[in-house]
């Protein structure tokens, strides 16, 4: 401790524990969604996700082999096998079992039970069973057996196959790995020249490369049969990307020029303009919905990507100009004046000096705009999504799932997790710039 403040050791433990509790409380809901997305519908519906890490006692309904598999053993007709193997499950230890749904715990492993239709059945602890009778078995289906067993925690990738298409997760992991490798190469290549910016460029290049791969090679190798959500979630994923990328890039340039003029050029009305931008910063975009939708319809854009790109650009500009201007004002005056004395025009100063120096502010805004456009629902609902639903975005898809399939937690959790995973990656990779932007952007 390099100062005397806060060195009271009696409080340290209390502080540690409170922070652990606080972080736990904040993390807990998200972890719930994450864990749920890897559980089957049955598991989600029958036990809380916080129990997913531990073995649980489960009641399973399994079936012995069908009568057609019987073999004759002397005078007896016998059906033999293993209950778990027949169901395609891993073998677990059975604690009790039964043959009627009313008494599922009637027998212990090794007991012999009398069947209602005649004959006997016995089930061993490992799931091996033997059904025997002096007469031949008839009928189509095998005997039902209810077993109670300690089932170890089990996780599945099936939800991701249903939500995004077959093999979506392994492919995404592969693309991400490719992105990481490319990012690493960029980092190593740039480290010598721009030690400070190498990391940001590497992250940006990695993410862009992964996205490019997703676009070029597709998200999955096909959809799960009968899953309507697979198609639409994958489509919504691409649509969201299509909305986000132009809506992030275009405002940056427009705002940068305006911010430079407001920061370093002297002209009448400048202070008034800055005040106006501060005012526009808080104007609720709710006001813009109807007038602009009408305008878009009148000039023939209607509902579609062009409209939503323009809208996001317009709504993002005040923050962009404000952030960039605040940053540019703080740049050293000498550099700019020296350049002026040397005969550089404003255009040259801007392109060659200001723009490269403003990189941190540009990155901050890019992250804000990316998060905002990716997470947006309202603007997409109003300016993008038409009656055909071809241009739906992820947030809209999730709201729809919430409404129509409120019970299908496995799909809902998976879809929601996919939609928040991308912002989370950006968040953790570029957190430094986000914090810097927040600090500069909150009106002091």
């Amino acid at each position, binding site marked *: 401790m390099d*100062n*005397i403040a*806060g060195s*009271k050791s009696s409080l340290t433990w209390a502080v540690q524990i409170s*922070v652990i509790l*606080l*972080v736990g409380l*904040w*993390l807990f*809901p*998200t972890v*719930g969604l994450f864990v749920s997305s890897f559980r089957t519908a049955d598991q989600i519906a029958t*036990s*809380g*996700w916080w129990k997913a890490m531990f073995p649980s006692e489960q009641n399973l309904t399994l079936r012995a082999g069908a009568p057609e598999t019987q073999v004759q053993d002397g005078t007896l007709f016998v059906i033999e096998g293993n209950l778990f193997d027949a169901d395609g499950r891993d073998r677990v230890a059975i604690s009790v079992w039964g043959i009627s749904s009313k008494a599922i715990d009637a027998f212990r492993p090794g007991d012999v039970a009398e069947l209602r239709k005649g004959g006997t059945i016995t089930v061993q602890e490992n799931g091996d069973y033997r059904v025997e009778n002096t007469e031949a078995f008839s009928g189509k289906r095998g005997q039902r057996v209810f077993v109670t067993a300690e089932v170890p925690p089990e996780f599945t990738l099936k939800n991701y196959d249903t939500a995004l298409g077959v093999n979506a997760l392994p492919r995404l992991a592969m693309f991400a790995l490719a992105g990481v490798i490319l990012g690493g190469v960029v980092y190593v290549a740039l480290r010598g020249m721009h030690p400070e910016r190498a990391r940001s460029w590497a992250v940006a290049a990695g993410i862009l490369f992964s996205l490019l791969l997703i*676009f070029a090679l597709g998200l999955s190798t096909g959809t799960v049969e009968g899953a309507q959500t697979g198609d639409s979630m994958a489509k919504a994923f691409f*649509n969201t990307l299509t909305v986000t990328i*132009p809506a992030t890039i*275009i405002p940056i*340039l*427009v705002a940068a*020029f305006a911010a430079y*003029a407001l920061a370093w050029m002297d002209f009448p009305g*400048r*202070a008034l303009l800055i*005040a*106006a931008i501060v*005012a526009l910063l808080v*104007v*609720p975009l*709710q*006001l*813009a*919905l*109807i*007038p602009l939708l009408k305008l878009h319809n009148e000039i023939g854009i209607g509902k579609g*990507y*062009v409209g939503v790109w*323009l809208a996001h*650009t317009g709504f993002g*500009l005040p923050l962009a100009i404000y952030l960039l201007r605040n940053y540019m004002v703080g740049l050293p005056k000498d550099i700019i004046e020296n350049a002026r004395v040397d005969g550089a025009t*404003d*255009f040259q100063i801007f392109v060659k000096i200001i723009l490269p120096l403003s990189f941190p502010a540009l990155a901050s805004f890019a992250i804000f705009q990316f998060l905002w456009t990716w997470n947006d*629902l*309202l603007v997409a609902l109003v300016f993008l999504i038409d009656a055909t639903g071809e241009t739906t975005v992820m*947030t809209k898809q*999730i*709201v729809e799932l*919430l409404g129509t399939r409120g019970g299908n*937690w496995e799909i*809902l*959790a998976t879809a929601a997790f996919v*939609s928040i995973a991308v*912002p989370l990656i950006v*968040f*953790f990779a570029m957190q430094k710039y986000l914090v810097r932007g927040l*600090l500069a952007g*909150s*009106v*002091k």
Partner: protein
Amino acid sequence: MHPALQGLITIIVGVGGCVGYYYLSNQFLDKVLFPARGANAGRNINRANMIRPWLFLAPALFALGLYLAYPVVETLRLSLTDRDAGGAFVGGANYAQMFAEPKFWEAMRNNMLWLIIVPAMSTAFGLLAAQLTDRLAWGNIAKSLIFMPMAISFVGAAVIWKLVYDTRPIEQDQIGILNAILLSLGAEEPRTWLTIPFWNNFFLMAVLIWIQTGFAMVILSAALRGIPEETVEAAIVDGANPFQIFFRIKIPQIAGTIVVVWTTITIVVLKVFDIVFAMTNGQWETQVLANYMYDKLFRANDWGVGSAAAMIIMLLVTPILVWNVYNARKEMK
């Protein structure tokens, strides 16, 4: 055309168009309109420099005007006209109609609750988190985990919290943690949290508090770091305990920042739409203004009343707008 291709073309056209506009308009100004040579070279340079700021500003001003300033005026006009009467001027009829609706007053009451509780709780939790993590070895990790919900969409957060609030019949295992805790504490019945009138508002607010605390923490944490060490050390020498230091020494010094955080979250609250839209859609007395407005505009197709509701939101934002502008101007002087 494939949307991705359209997107790529838009990026190229958009960025290329911007670069082209700035470059060519500057060239035009310097080479054609006011060339810096000949008899009037000096005067031309001055003239060009008078016009150049407006060249730089023009696209941004156009977009700002069209997408933010014009709608304010147009919404005001629409709120005074009636769609059924072919857009005729009806004065305050839309407002009168809206004020007569119980749903509107429900939205107003809820919005006021949101306005008081969400900024207060977010700021309080943010301050607590900022102070506690300030001198911790793993403080930065803790901070980034509390900050994380900022990256999650309101819709994603709605799903996350719906799982927390989930209710199952009593004979089944509860999969929502809140009901599981309630039952393990000995309650008889699980609750359907989102349908309990009045109190369900607080369950919705919890979502926004969960998101905004990270924002408050980041800003306040930076402010706490900015407090001069001497003031704290002087207090310790004078025998102040940690609580006195926090409340009497630190809080007064960051009061300005607390106000900024408070007002910023207030604006977020006024615009809150997605959380209510996704979780209850205004049922069970959870309506808020932004969702009420959306209902009027796109479900009832009544842009008169919808615009009137939008104007109410604008009216509520205005004091903060004026305050921000006042402060920004003061700072520039």
